[in-house]
């Protein structure tokens, strides 16, 4: 196959990749900075025999996704931070009814109406408690436009496989920037595996299917939740995704995802040039958090630095994973400000000075890892 590289905005890449992943049902509500995603869907879906529906609210949009998912379709919604908060109720019901769908959050600054600039301040919301009740959902955090396209595929597959909502946590910077991207091969929705649990009319051939999250008998609900958490254990064991950069001998390990990982990457390169053994762990799944990848750095790491576009959220997960083996520090900018490589480098240099690190060997420039 000839590679067909095109220049696309992150938001558009997410939309096109969803179409190619077999999603024909999109329900959304206008909000900056995810605008191009919905606009792209409104242009393309009617021509693909699908449905683009601009809902009356974020709340309605996620409930339309609930209906479409229950009916057996690959369905998606996208929004940005304040809109995602409104979807929280629906996501909880979707998780409770064990339905698969994809929710995209092109994050902006918060709390409240916040800003329309890029942010990563919905990390806690995405990985901890988007809605009420005992549940998690897998969260993908792409850091390039190519990865945005790829992770939509993964998101739909993970959603269908485990019957769970899945979130793609992007941000205003990734959504708005343009990069070359090779689109994945399209899937014909008709070829996707059947969903025998779908509420699509029993046709007189089976007992009725019910999509539901209500269990009035306490022991039934407990049973259901325990079963779901067993599925979460499988997800934790098999679906962690992360990338490492120069971590083999890294003494100062940066941890960063999405847009901030791009900046942390630059800072690590400069730190290496200055003889500091810095490395980067970039979580691609935020839940499950890639604890196994982080564990590969324990032997050499003398300190960790979580770099985020918020007041310090993922740093909690880094601390839990590192579990006291080394100090875990945090550096972030918030309110829609993107940290600069120089600011991050200054933090690395400060830690190096405090720990008496540095004086690296000089082969490290070539020790690029997969």
């Amino acid at each position: 196959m000839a590679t067909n590289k095109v220049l696309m905005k992150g938001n558009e890449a997410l939309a096109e990749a969803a179409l190619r992943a077999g999603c024909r049902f999109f329900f959304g509500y206008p909000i900056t900075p995810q605008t191009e995603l919905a606009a792209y869907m409104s242009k393309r879906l009617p021509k693909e025999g699908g449905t683009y529906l601009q809902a009356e609210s974020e709340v309605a949009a996620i409930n339309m996704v609930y209906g479409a998912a229950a009916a057996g379709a690959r369905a998606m919604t996208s929004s940005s931070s304040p809109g995602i908060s409104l979807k929280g109720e629906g996501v909880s019901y979707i998780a409770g009814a064990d339905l698969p769908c994809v929710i995209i959050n092109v994050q902006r600054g918060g709390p409240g109406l916040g800003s329309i600039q890029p942010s990563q301040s919905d990390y806690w919301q995405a990985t901890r408690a988007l809605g009420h009740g005992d549940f998690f959902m897998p969260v993908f955090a792409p850091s390039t436009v190519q990865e945005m396209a790829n992770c939509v595929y993964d998101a739909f597959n993970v959603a269908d496989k485990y019957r769970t909502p899945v979130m793609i946590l992007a941000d205003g910077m990734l959504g708005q920037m343009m990069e070359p991207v090779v689109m994945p091969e399209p899937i014909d929705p008709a070829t996707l595996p059947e969903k025998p649990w779908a509420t699509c009319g029993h046709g007189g051939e089976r007992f009725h299917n019910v999509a539901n999250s209500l269990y009035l008998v306490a022991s039934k609900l407990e049973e259901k939740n325990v079963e779901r958490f067993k599925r979460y254990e499988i997800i934790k064991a098999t679906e962690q995704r992360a990338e490492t950069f120069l971590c083999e001998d890294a003494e100062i390990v940066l941890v960063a995802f999405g847009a901030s990982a791009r900046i942390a990457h630059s800072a690590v390169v400069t730190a290496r040039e200055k003889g500091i053994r810095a490395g980067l762990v970039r979580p691609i799944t935020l839940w499950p958090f890639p604890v196994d990848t982080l564990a590969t750095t324990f032997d050499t790491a003398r300190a960790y630095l979580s770099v985020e576009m918020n007041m310090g959220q993922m740093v909690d997960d880094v601390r839990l994973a590192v579990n006291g083996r080394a100090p875990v520090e945090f550096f972030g900018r918030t309110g829609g400000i993107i940290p600069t490589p120089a600011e991050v480098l200054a933090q690395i240099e400060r830690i190096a000075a405090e720990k008496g690190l540095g004086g690296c060997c000089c082969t490290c420039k070539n020790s690029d890892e997969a």
Partner: protein
Amino acid sequence: MIEKDLTARAENVPVIPARSEEIIELAEGEKIVKTRPHALLPVVTNYCPGCPHGIMNRLVAEVLDELDIEGKTIGVAPVGCSVMSYDFFGCDMVEAAHGRSPAVATGIKRVHPDKVVFAYQGDGDLASIGMAETVHAATRGEKITIIFINNAIYGMTGGQMAPTSLPNQVTQTSPYGRDVHTAGFPVRICELLSTLDGVAYAERVCVDSPKSIRNAKRALKKAFECQIEGIGYSIIEVVSTCPTNWGMTPQKAFEWMRENMLPYYPLGVYRDVKADGFQDIYGAAAKRAEGCPIAQPPAANEGSK
């Protein structure tokens, strides 16, 4: 139809062991004139004695049977007294969050436009927390059928003031009677929705007598047919009672309903685009907007250019 295995369901609701015709011994000259509709599972419902939900659940099931659509119907259950109707109806069912039924039904219908989708909602669900979903599903002309049970009170939570509680009506949260100066006025749903172009059929009925029950069933059937024929959105509002939370016997409750609710919520057909001479909502809407060039077909054909 396959045999319905209710063993799993028995964990949630008590199952009636056999169809009534099999356990009733008929005396000389007696015959069975009505049996349980196929689309109503043989389970014990959670409704209070004297509650019209039982009548309405049955009527919906009878219509599904008569139109032979149980196998191609997906129902949406609300939050409220009929929340567990997903265990009662024999068609595929989805339980929606409070007020969100029209949005959930929209999602289902868009995926399966050839199937029949209905939502069964109460007044708190439809006219309060779900008002935005109600109005917008209606104005979009979703090909769905809404069954709206209006008994002027929140039944499930124990009798609080509803958006349709009457002025001066005493409830748990309007203990001195609904004061219209502070709590405002009740919402008349059929009147409100009949102003919207997406609504093909809107009728208000009640189920307080054999005659009115027969009439309600006729209306219900018409609403489903309206959906099947693709005419537009249809809604049947049922003026109902809540003997438990009104603190009345079922008979007294119907009396109170006739005396107080029916004057406020008059029965009748509020919109019927077919009777108005239109093929569907699109023809009726274009006529209504006659003076507006851009609103004339086929200009608004989404995705055609």
